[in-house]
């Protein structure tokens, strides 16, 4: 099973080089690579489920200067989610980009992004995490700027500067950690670290850098323009995966590595920021005039929910109740990944077919593009958190945690946020179902509509109805 780990990093990297060298057959190479990565991710999850957490040192070099790959339940789950979303978006992109030159520029960066995502999720020490975080940021910016329009370039530039700022803060934190504890290995750190000024400062610096990258309110200002002006497949993975990668690091640091350092007050601060994100993001999504802006603001809001879990996790005593809540958090993150990717892909189809994505002028889309409208509705179910989506189970745990710890304010925030989400989704559907004399077409699903549809089904049906193993997998730690 260690082969699967190596494959997850080596395959996309090799694919990136191959698409660079063979621009004419880049699409075929990329789709083939994507399939292989998805198989590897599936195998890895199976391996983790049967054999427990996995560990591999590349070239036999031990932690410190060598590169070690690790996978536990959480990272294996996120790797599989990444693979499925990236594969679906790849299939979509193969139809989305029409010219050879567009494709030749897109695929190498795309596969590089995939490499850095996988490597980040497999890294077990702060040094490699820093490197992969940078690689991820750079490839994401390059992809975001591919749209070529002025707005896209300006947003990408801002995205880059914000990302660099975040990385520098993260790096400064890493330096402090090394000065204080003499190791960067996460597992060793978790044992060595104790509460104190060095640990607090380092955690504060790293967290601030990561919050900037994950666009937590009020550091979200760069996200809506960047995600709304990129091309559809890029927007999909930026919103679904790239911000999630930074969030994954926050989760690892706060819950695993710095578990002895973090205080309930600090977690409450994250909760407050999360609440701000939920309310402000949902409100702005409701005001948005364009579909892509709506989706981007919805990402700001959805990330907020994830941070609402922090004060609950810190207040719950270690044990089943806490594990349930942690599972709910991951379930919400997974569902959002699939749902938001689906939403952006579906919006891309509307944009290509109708020539715009203005919400007020969507009348009749339900008749013209029934499958795409259905995908938006399903993704909307997951974003609102209605059953049978995975987000319903996630929000259930969020509410249960809030009730169990008596932190009613998060419950109120969740309820208001969900109703606002319902409002912005229904606003879109109301226009899509609007009355226009369109011909009675039979329901047909075009090739580029399938990825959005399948991703939405994953979020709204599969995760909700067959997601119970997620909780078991999360107990497999490093």
């Amino acid at each position: 099973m260690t082969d699967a780990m190596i494959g997850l990093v080596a395959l996309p990297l090799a694919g990136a080089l191959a698409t660079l060298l063979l621009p004419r057959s880049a699409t075929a190479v990329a789709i083939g690579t994507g399939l292989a990565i998805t198989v590897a991710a599936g195998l890895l999850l199976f391996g983790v489920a049967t054999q427990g957490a996995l560990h591999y040192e590349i070239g036999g070099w031990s932690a410190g200067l060598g590169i070690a790959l690790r996978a536990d339940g959480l990272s294996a789950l996120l790797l599989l989610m990444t693979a499925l979303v990236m594969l679906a978006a790849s299939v979509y992109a193969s139809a989305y980009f029409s010219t050879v030159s567009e494709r030749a520029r897109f695929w190498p960066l795309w596969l590089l992004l995939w490499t850095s995502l996988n490597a980040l999720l497999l890294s077990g020490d702060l040094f490699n995490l820093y490197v992969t975080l940078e690689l991820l940021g750079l490839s994401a910016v390059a992809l975001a700027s591919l749209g070529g329009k002025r707005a896209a370039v300006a947003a990408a530039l801002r995205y880059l500067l914000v990302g660099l700022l975040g990385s520098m803060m993260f790096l400064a934190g890493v330096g402090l950690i090394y000065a204080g504890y003499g190791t960067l290995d996460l597992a060793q750190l978790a044992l060595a670290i104790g509460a104190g000024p060095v640990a607090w400062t380092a955690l504060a610096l790293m967290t601030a850098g990561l919050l900037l990258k994950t666009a937590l309110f009020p550091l979200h200002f760069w996200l809506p323009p960047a995600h709304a002006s990129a091309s559809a497949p890029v927007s999909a993975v930026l919103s679904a995966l790239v911000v999630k990668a930074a969030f994954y690091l926050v989760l690892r640091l706060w819950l695993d590595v710095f578990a002895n350092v973090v205080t309930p007050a600090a977690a409450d601060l994250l909760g407050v920021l999360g609440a701000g994100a939920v309310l402000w993001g949902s409100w702005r999504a409701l005001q948005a005039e364009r579909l892509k802006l709506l989706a981007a603001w919805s990402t700001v809001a959805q990330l907020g929910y994830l941070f609402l879990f922090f004060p609950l996790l810190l207040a719950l005593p270690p044990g089943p109740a806490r594990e349930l809540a942690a599972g709910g958090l991951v379930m919400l993150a997974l569902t959002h990944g699939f749902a938001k990717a689906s939403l952006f892909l579906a919006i891309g189809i509307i944009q290509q077919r109708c020539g715009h994505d203005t919400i007020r002028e969507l009348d009749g889309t339900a008749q013209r593009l029934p499958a795409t409208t259905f995908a938006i509705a399903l993704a909307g179910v997951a974003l609102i958190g209605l059953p049978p989506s995975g987000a319903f189970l996630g929000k259930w745990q969020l509410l249960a945690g809030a009730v169990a710890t008596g932190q009613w304010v998060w419950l109120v925030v969740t309820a208001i946020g969900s109703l606002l989400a319902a409002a912005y989704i229904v606003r879109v559907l109301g226009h899509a179902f609007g009355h226009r004399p369109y011909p009675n077409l039979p329901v047909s699903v075009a090739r580029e509509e399938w990825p959005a549809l399948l991703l939405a089904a994953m979020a709204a049906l599969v995760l909700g109805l067959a997601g119970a193993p997620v909780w078991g997998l999360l107990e497999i730690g490093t």
Partner: protein
Amino acid sequence: MLTTQVLYALAGCVIVALGLRGALLHASLLQRIVAINVMGAGVFLLLIAVAYRGPGLAPDPVPHALVLTGIVVAVSATALALALARRLHAEQGDD
């Protein structure tokens, strides 16, 4: 006690602060790119101070590796930022 190591580290912190201030307050794009690079230099200085293990001893290689990687990243990111800025500028001229 103000050893060389602490001096380096403090200088690094001051440079980081200056860079951060520049990155947040400057309106001009080029100034912000430079400011972020200044901030990076401060972080690297901090890391070099961390690597010092005492007179006569070889410095710790791990922070050095971090600095080297950081420089590579900073250079490529700056290049990307400048390229984007040029494209932005060119399109602005077109408008």
